[in-house]
């Protein structure tokens, strides 16, 4: 790593977020023309938005912002809002959250099986370039948006302090060596296990052999991952002069938790600890919350079942305004970090949306979706057919392609979003 590469951005980063980098990315990025890597951040707020307050009118660049989008006015040129997108065949009320990044059909059914999430597809291509292949995060629930190839949920990190420690606290040399040895031993354990699996498998019927293939693949994948991880252990972690944050105590601290997690997301991306972040914001299990102005609200999920009751609608609207305001802050914060090619926001495709549109009736069509940053041409409302939705996966494919993943399909996609 040469000095003249890092001097400028590091100083700016110190100003912006008090983070210093110990930075592997330049090595790999040097091979392409981009000096900074492209990242992907995908956020799902699981209670939707009151559609009439979210949906913009008009199309293209001249669209009229809705009351909620008006709260993002400062960033209007930096994002695109979509309407008429959803996952075909994804129903199942609140259970649709599991399919938000996978598009696996009918999450409510007993026979449901999930499939790989879009961030994990990307991780298969670019995950090895960073210390963490991807970071699935969550607020108020350890549930995750990320699923492996075989549809197994990858647990999310819910504690901001645990995430912070993971990213920044460096062990001493002895600790590092111990960890490297541990990983090496784990590797030899897997060797033996996989040997046994082969013998075990040979005595099985054909259907069971296929099931055991999955186990074999899992062991092999893990072996590869451990090799990568061992290399990362020896590299220094990025440094920061920030203190370990304190996790808010209860589920009632929803807003503080979310705010803290947004800050951690920025740190993770800024330090190139990972290039792929998913964040699940669990309003459904939030028993109540307090907004920064001190006003308290009852069960968030309960408010979304307002049946057009004025009192509940008003309370819900106030919470949703705060959600949008916080999103605006996040975008602003990402945009304040200068990198060699534009700002961190320019280099981060930021998808924000929900698995429900109108949570009052558990509607999974016409999802509220915003895409900011990532170098797309923004400032527009891309409106698709409200009665015959376009697959949300088409947007995912466009994002994967931008990330350099050579694919023309994901999940239920039928193409890309050519208009983007």
């Amino acid at each position, binding site marked *: 790593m040469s000095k003249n590469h890092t001097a400028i951005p590091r100083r700016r980063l110190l100003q912006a977020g008090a983070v210093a980098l110990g930075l592997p990315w330049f090595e790999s990025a040097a091979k392409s023309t981009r000096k900074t890597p492209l990242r992907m951040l995908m956020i799902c707020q699981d209670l939707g938005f009151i559609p009439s307050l979210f949906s913009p009118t008009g199309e293209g660049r001249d669209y009229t912002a809705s009351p909620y989008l008006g709260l993002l006015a400062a960033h209007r040129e930096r994002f695109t809002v979509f309407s008429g997108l959803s996952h075909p065949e994804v129903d199942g009320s609140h259970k649709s959250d599991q399919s938000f990044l996978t598009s696996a059909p009918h999450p409510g059914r007993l026979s449901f099986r999930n499939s790989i999430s879009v961030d994990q597809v990307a991780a298969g291509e670019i995950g090895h370039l960073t210390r963490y292949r991807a970071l699935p995060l969550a607020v108020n629930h350890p549930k995750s948006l990320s699923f492996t190839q075989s549809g197994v949920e*990858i647990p999310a990190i819910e504690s901001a302090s645990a995430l912070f420690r993971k990213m920044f606290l460096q062990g001493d040399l002895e600790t590092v060596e111990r960890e490297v040895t541990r990983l090496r031993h784990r590797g030899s354990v897997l060797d033996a296990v996989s040997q046994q699996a082969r013998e075990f498998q040979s005595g099985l019927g054909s259907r069971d052999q296929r099931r055991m293939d999955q*186990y074999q693949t899992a062991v092999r994948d893990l072996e590869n991952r451990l090799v990568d991880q061992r290399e990362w252990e020896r590299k220094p972690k990025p440094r920061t002069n920030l203190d370990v944050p304190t996790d808010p105590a209860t589920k009632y601290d929803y807003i503080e938790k979310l705010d803290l997690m947004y800050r951690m997301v920025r740190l993770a991306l800024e330090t190139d600890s990972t290039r792929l972040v998913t964040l699940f914001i669990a309003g459904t299990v939030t028993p109540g919350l307090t907004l920064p102005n001190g006003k308290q609200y009852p069960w968030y999920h309960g408010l979304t079942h307002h049946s057009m009751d004025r009192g509940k609608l008003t309370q819900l609207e106030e919470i949703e305004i705060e959600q949008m305001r916080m999103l605006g802050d996040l975008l602003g914060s990402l945009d304040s970090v200068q990198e060699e090619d534009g700002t961190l926001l320019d280099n981060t495709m930021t998808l924000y949306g929900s698995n429900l549109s109108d949570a009052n009736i*558990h509607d999974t069509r016409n999802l509220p979706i915003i895409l900011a940053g990532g170098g797309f041409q923004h400032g527009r409302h891309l409106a698709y057919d409200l009665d015959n939705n376009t697959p949300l996966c088409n947007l995912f494919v466009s994002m994967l392609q931008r990330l350099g993943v050579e694919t023309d399909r994901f999940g239920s996609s039928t193409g890309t979003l050519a208009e983007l």
Partner: protein
Amino acid sequence: MIASPKRDAAVRRCVLAAALFFCAPAVLAVGSYESVRAVLDRSCVGCHGESLAEGGLDLRHLEWDIADLDNRQRWVLVHDRVSKGEMPPVPGLISGPDRETLVAELSRAVRSVEADETARDGRASIRRLNRVEYQNTLQDLLRLRYLNVVQMLPRDGEAHGFAKLGEALDVSDVQVNAYLDAAEMALRLALEFPAARPEARVSRHYARAQKGMVALNGNSLWNRWWLALDGLEVNEEHSWEKELSSRTVGEADLEKRESESVAIFRGPYQPYQYNFNQGRVAHSGDYRVRVRLRSVLRQTDMAEPGPEPRFFPEGDPTGKWDFLEPVADRVYEGKRPEPVSFYAMYSGDGSEGSVNPTTDHVRYLATLEAPPDQPRTLEFGAYLRQGEILRPDTIRLPRPMVPALPETIKQLDPEGFPGVAFHWVELEGPLVEQWPPASYAALFGNLPFRQVDGVQRVEAIPRDPRVEAAALLRDFMERAYRRPPDEREAEGFVAIAHALLAEGVPFTDAMITTYGAVLSSPRFLFLSQAPGQLDDYALAERLALFLTDAGPDEELLALASAGQLGVPGVLREQVDRLLEHGRAARFFRGYLDDWLGLGEIRFTEPDRVLFPEYAGDDWLVDSMVAETRLFFADLVARDQPARNIVDADYTFLNERLANHYGVGGIRGPAFRRMPVPDGNPHGGILTQASVLKITASGAGTSPVVRGAWVKERIEGEPPPPPPPGIPAIEPDTRGATTIRELLARHREDRACAACHARIDPPGLALENFDVMGAWRVNYRSLGEGERVEGRGRSGNNFVHYIGKPVDASGQLGDGSAFGDIHGFKALLLADERKIAKNLAEQLTVYATGARVRFTDREEIAGILDRSAGSEHGVRTIIHEIVQSALFRHK
């Protein structure tokens, strides 16, 4: 998924061609298709053809690909509807011989494919342990008194409602890594004890000296949630003292100290929790816990005199936060025993950030009753972990919830505000019966051990590391694998241990790494079953996973090793033994969590405006779960008929649930078996509050959701899933329309009507039960009806309306009508066998990890025939399942 029809057709052709080529039974099946096709063309495709696919079924294009599960299920549906005479709907549309041909040929085709599957792979797919089984098995294997690794493992996939089926229990690299982590944690836990046997000590922790029992900034004017009491005298000085050490006489006056207490008045605003933070457990182990406490009653006079003494401050409704100042609190003896639950709360080693997020923080220990007349010392036994402290909870009193507004705190009792005065808690322990702990012997036999420097952990001292490593591993593998390992497998793991030792890794670490390998290997993680009849070891494994949610114990393994377990009488004895054993609690929990969804009972919370009386009432929710578990366990223990699922003349109640059900005469938190009074609708699992809550949302009930649930879980007739793109019907909480009216509109649509005529009636019958399962005669609404205004249990102001009356009548598919839940239950119980059949099928899926197929119907029928003598007693059904070919074959 969007699929291209063209590609699908091509794939189907390929599949068909492959089937023709490879598999003889499929050729036979194609032969019979011609006769099936002919009947369909004559009698069915008029409605179920391409132009008019009634019920979404296009019989002209339904592929004759029985090997495909989805397709097979559609053909089975055709078979069933036609054989029962439900289809075609008009009698003359099919001739008698045609009906027979169709039914016989479909049956033959399906059987032939399933017989082939059974021979090749068995009914059940190979599967791994689910995460609960993994944890239980590990805990038993390592002889750990406590283990919680469930949260470290990814959630399991479910099929047919159960996390027991191979096709849904996937494995990924994340999972394998998590297994390795969990195993390592558990193995290290087994060595976490001091080198010297700890002496039992008695430590007493006075409430007045606990930071966790008082607010360090004193009480606020309007919210005095704790008071320092000397006897029953309020010690004003100590109640307002900010300095912790000045709140007690301490050692200066030992007699006076005994009379000191902290009275906690839990209201809707404060306190969220209180605990004995100084009583941190130093050594994990069994303890005798003694608590000195009593119940009390407080009355408070306010500065501004009013006509009545006010017991709790009422603030300014304009929200200016001006509160009346309490001038005098008087405390009296309690009017009644006050239930107090005790929990163990993990608080780490006391250093900041030492809480382990991978283990649960709060564990339930016991519920006591604080006596009203005088302080008494009560005692219970508990296993406590190092780093845990005791946390009491006055479960009957309002639970503080944000946002409870301070001006609207309601007293429970017009004669005063109830609370509990805590004097002290005393911990006696650890009470060590076995030393070293069994967990050590499970890993290192009788090798000596020594303390590891600086931590509370031991390491083994080997005499001959290589020899002992090999011997210990062979012994461990035999227990872990639930059958003797073959020599080559053992050698593979011994080689790992030897390599680590050669590298200079300390003996204990080398063994832990190698044990970890054993615990992540397929023979531990996966069930070992070969197609055909299970051998005795596989039988032991299946039986233990069924009735204990864990691997087989020593007795089962010994019987398997002696080749005795398969003897029907022995198997029967073992079922009885496991069901008597305390471990069957794991079965009741695991099975009910999945079958009824009990595990998800807290997924919704009642709306605090519509249902203000339930806010934060954890005692009620916990009691609901306890009732259902106790009741089901009783059905098993006393072999009560399966019809009790629908209706029963007894149940298990405590005070909270009895009040909820409108049954008087019970006080206290203990459950007892009680007759259900005549006319009370809560007898039977179907109308227990747990089920009624699980099937409701927080804001209302939907007959569609409840109806579908009853059809699927109780009647065993799962309705088809809703067509895509149809949003759910949400109850109109404004009250303008009843759900029945909404549904009626829905059912006018012919496409919807066919299914909803079946789905909705059971749900309609349950309409008299609100979201928490209490009886109601009117709906509540947010907009229409008779206005009700008040303050909820959690202190919130509410306005709701008593809306339209409930009509719980309906008509079943066969035309029989019911007026309410009683009538519905009577209709359901006209066919007791159906209820028993569903239970037998659900238990079979749970027990065997495979769905009940078309071919398995005779076996299920046999189980039912053989349990008829006991009127389908639940224990008899379990016995008959275990004895059946379904259970005894893979």
